[in-house]
């Protein structure tokens, strides 16, 4: 009797816990394979691009990957690579195309293997695409050459929300991490030393958010935003996130002093999303003329601007230059991110406002900083939202978030940018069983950032720091 009960229990356990590929899980049905890895460009150090066929019926496909005299065939509706074979093929095809043929599809396709390397990994926040309340969330790290993912910090350790995180050109030793909630703090890790800061001062608008490191590592640009949410009632729109006010400031890391100037703290301008230029002598940001909220929320339009910055003194210039007059186009700029080689700047363009993730029309645009020409990144964009983006440390890969698959759950994509600023068709962050993984992943990828090595975050130490009330107070000074 006991044995029988045990067998039944084991049977239930096995049935309940095993994985099997189920094409009916597919809710992305455009195209014959998913994720769409046809004609994409990938770096050598990327994890296997496993995919599945979206057609549940018909003969079982055989997919053959060829380069030179290497031919690897994989049978099945789900194409799952052996890690070693994938790496061998990519190494062999570096700088060349892999030809892919399928027994069930008429035309072959290619996977171009770029000669440009990609960084070690990426960091992102995983959070449900919700409104005000948040469930489990945290900052996670994913190794790009494998499927390994680990949580760096999660809100299971404290009451609060882990928020904006930023690294200096992907350097895992220097980062800024913001915690919201009753234990609010900004954790700054400077060359392995971590401390919790109170970034709000009497002279600034509020807590420091949207960090961006100065290339020299001595400054971090922040904005302070008085952010609110509103909820639409029509079917095609859900949420509107907007600022009631915002200013910019630069934190002097060595002297613990927040610096601002009248030029970026104007009463009649909302300034946000600061980003230093590659040489560290300019500060790009978005600026809009305030409008009554919520009546004219759809009239708020941010332009792309810049102001001089002197790294020697930390002083912010007085003249504001407008680089993209989006207002004139009836559009709005957010998330300006210059490439680290100083050639390009990628930004998000939407119809209005600055919280582009909730705008289905939001697309990525690229600005050539030498010629001043700006154009949409058509190969990277889709019919749905493209929003936050980040450059790899060698400025050859751009990672961005997109809602192209279902319109709500944000996923990560990578596109190669060549020396002329031309993007390639993007590929989705690979997973071992992508269809299953993304079907049941109920959180969005948020604020993705490249890292050049694993982040060594002392989780217990950070937890202790966050849960304690001790905070180092940011100082303040006006720009000279």
């Amino acid at each position, binding site marked *: 009797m006991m044995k029988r009960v045990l067998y039944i229990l084991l049977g239930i356990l096995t049935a*309940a816990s095993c994985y099997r590929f189920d094409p009916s*899980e597919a809710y992305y049905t455009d195209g014959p394979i998913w994720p769409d890895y046809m004609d994409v460009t990938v770096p050598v150090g990327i994890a296997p691009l496993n995919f599945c066929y979206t057609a549940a019926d018909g003969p079982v496909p055989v997919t053959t990957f060829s380069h030179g005299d290497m031919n690897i065939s994989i049978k099945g509706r789900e194409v799952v690579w052996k890690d070693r074979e994938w790496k061998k093929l990519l190494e062999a095809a570096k700088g060349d195309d892999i030809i892919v043929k399928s027994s069930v599809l008429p035309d072959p396709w290619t996977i171009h293997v770029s000669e440009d390397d990609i960084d070690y990994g990426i960091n992102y926040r995983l959070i*449900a695409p919700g409104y005000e309340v948040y469930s489990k969330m945290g900052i996670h790290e994913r190794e790009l050459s494998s499927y390994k993912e680990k949580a760096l910090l999660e809100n299971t350790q404290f009451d609060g929300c882990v928020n904006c995180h930023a690294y200096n050109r992907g350097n895992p030793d220097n980062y800024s991490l913001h915690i919201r909630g009753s234990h609010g703090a900004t954790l700054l890790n400077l060359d392995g030393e971590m401390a919790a800061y109170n970034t709000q001062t009497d002279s600034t608008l509020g807590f420091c958010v949207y960090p961006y490191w100065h290339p020299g590592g001595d400054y971090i640009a922040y904005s302070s935003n008085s952010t609110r949410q509103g*909820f*639409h*009632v029509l079917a095609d729109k*859900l949420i509107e996130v907007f600022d009631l006010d915002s200013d910019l400031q630069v934190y002097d890391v060595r002297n613990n002093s927040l610096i601002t100037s009248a030029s970026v703290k104007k009463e009649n301008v909302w300034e946000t999303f600061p980003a230093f230029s590659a040489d560290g002598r300019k500060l790009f940001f978005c600026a809009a003329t305030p409008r009554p909220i919520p009546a004219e929320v759809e009239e708020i339009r941010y332009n792309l601007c810049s102001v001089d910055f002197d790294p020697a003194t930390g002083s912010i210039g007085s003249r504001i230059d407008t680089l993209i007059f989006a207002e004139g186009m009836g559009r709005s700029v957010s998330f300006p991110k210059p490439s680290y080689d100083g050639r390009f700047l990628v930004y998000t363009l939407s119809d209005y406002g600055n919280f582009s993730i909730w705008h289905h029309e939001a697309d990525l645009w690229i600005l050539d900083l030498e010629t001043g020409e700006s154009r949409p990144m058509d190969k990277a964009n889709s019919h749905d939202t493209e929003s936050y983006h980040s450059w790899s440390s060698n400025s050859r890969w751009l990672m961005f978030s997109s809602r192209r698959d279902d319109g709500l759950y944000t996923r990560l994509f990578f596109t190669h940018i060549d020396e002329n600023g031309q993007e390639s068709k993007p590929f989705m962050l690979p997973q071992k069983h992508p269809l*299953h993984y993304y079907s*049941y992943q109920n959180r969005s990828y948020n604020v993705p950032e490249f890292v050049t090595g694993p982040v060594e975050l002392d989780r*217990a130490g950070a937890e202790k720091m966050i849960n304690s009330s001790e905070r180092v107070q940011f100082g303040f000074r006006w720009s000279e």
Partner: protein
Amino acid sequence: MNRRQTIICSAQSITVFLLAFAFFNFIYPYHLHYQEQMQLFRFGQDYFVESVAVPGGFCDWIGGFLVQFFYHAPAGAFILSVLLGLIQLLTWKNMGKGSFASYPLSILPAAAMFLFFCDENALVTAATAIIASLTLSYALMKISRTGLRCIITILLMPVMYMLFGSISILVPLTVGIRSIIRKENTKTILVFCSASFIVAAVTLLVARGYSPYPLNRLAFGIHYHRYHNAIPLLAWISVILVPAAMLLATAMKKDRMAALSLAIAVLPAVCLAPMFADMEKERLFGYDFMTRMGQWNKILATSDRHPADSPIAVECTNLALAKTKHMSSDMFSFFQNGPAGLVPEFTRDHFSPVPTGTVYYHLGMINTAQTFFFEAQEGIPDFQKSARLTQMLAKTNLINGDYEVARKYVNALKQTVFYRKWAKETEKLLDDPALIDKVPEYSWMRSVRMKDHDFMFSQEEMDSMLGLLYVENKANVMAMDYLLAWCLLRKDLPRFFECHKLLQDGYDARHYQEAVVLYWALTHDGPEGMPGFVTRNVASSFARFISGFQSGRDEASMQKEFGNTYWFYYYYRFK
């Protein structure tokens, strides 16, 4: 024990089981429904791996597996009773060769767990962890060689911690106590106790290194209570009562002590049960459940029997009134707490937004309903998802035309036991969206939802939103009922009159007549020109009310005669 004593002991176990079943099934069924909707148990590798990756995750997975059956309260009551029965039985087994008199002591841990489960946020995981631990310690005691048993126990401790959570400390505790009772080698037991302590501490520290939880949660259990800041005290008392019962049993050898033993085991639970059982919450969960199931008449009958005076109960009662088309005629026959009784403001918790979201859903405010459902789900304190709310989110996304998102939720529900059928049927709609409009619920929701006017939801502008809903679809009578009720509950008679004036015939229900006659009396010198739909009965009743009010009749007598009128609410309630 002789045959008679064995029968008495069995009768005690059966009684424990039956009492627990009767309590949960007949007195506390809505708590079980509440438990069920606080999780989304899925059959699948990812869910299993995610569950077992944290300490105690395996027992949590088993607990989740069991709680899904709480969808049907009798099944939930049966499962809880079986769990309590197993705790009692396994405690008895671990007591060794206990005497007849000591048998009732084995009820003690189960009694504590019974009280524990009176808390709606107590998780079944705690019971499964105790059962698993007691089973293992019982098996370990079968090893006759003390040293070997101790070594195996110590080696198993980290594994047990990973599978059962911190309650697994019960295993070395039980094994140690049993060895002491058996008077086995004292030195070995001492070494065993010290080693157990060290291994437990090291296990905790190791877990601290890889698990993203604070030390107190790793020590007191991650999955034993829904609120992570709450220490599941009764579950731990239950754990402590196991060795306590084992030790006490050694002193209860004589048969005549059976009564004393029974009293020790049962009386505290019986006396404490009324303190621990929260019948107010049970009523609230009842209202929520009936709202979920659309049992509108049952809600009204319940409110009739036991006046609904909590915000959620009032909200559900008003929704039931609207759904049965009695709002305009019977609303003030029930307790009203102002406009918050119609649609309360959003609060950041995991329960109260659910009935409010349901009200918005029925009104056709699909986005707002979706917000409330999503937020409630995100607010579940132990970071679970909710099968019920996932289903509602699938519905709102389907109505909104966001089919891919709806399919994602449907896919998750396909991996459940009780929502699978619904998910499969909904999947067909998603495969062929033309079929959606053939489903009355969805086609109605699509017809009454806002289509032309976009604005930001604002609780302060509820009247404008309800008005626009009605303007966009005149068939949405519920929106107009809510708009008029909103004005009445706010005592905003000019706005009520303004809205009411715009309506065609058919809005002459009793409360509207009462409001019109009151408004007329407050703003005019005489009845001349008063809308003709006010009946003579209402007018004369109002005259009596005003006369009584002006002559200073006491409130109780006014309530007796006019308690179900708008006038009484206007002058005596929600001041």
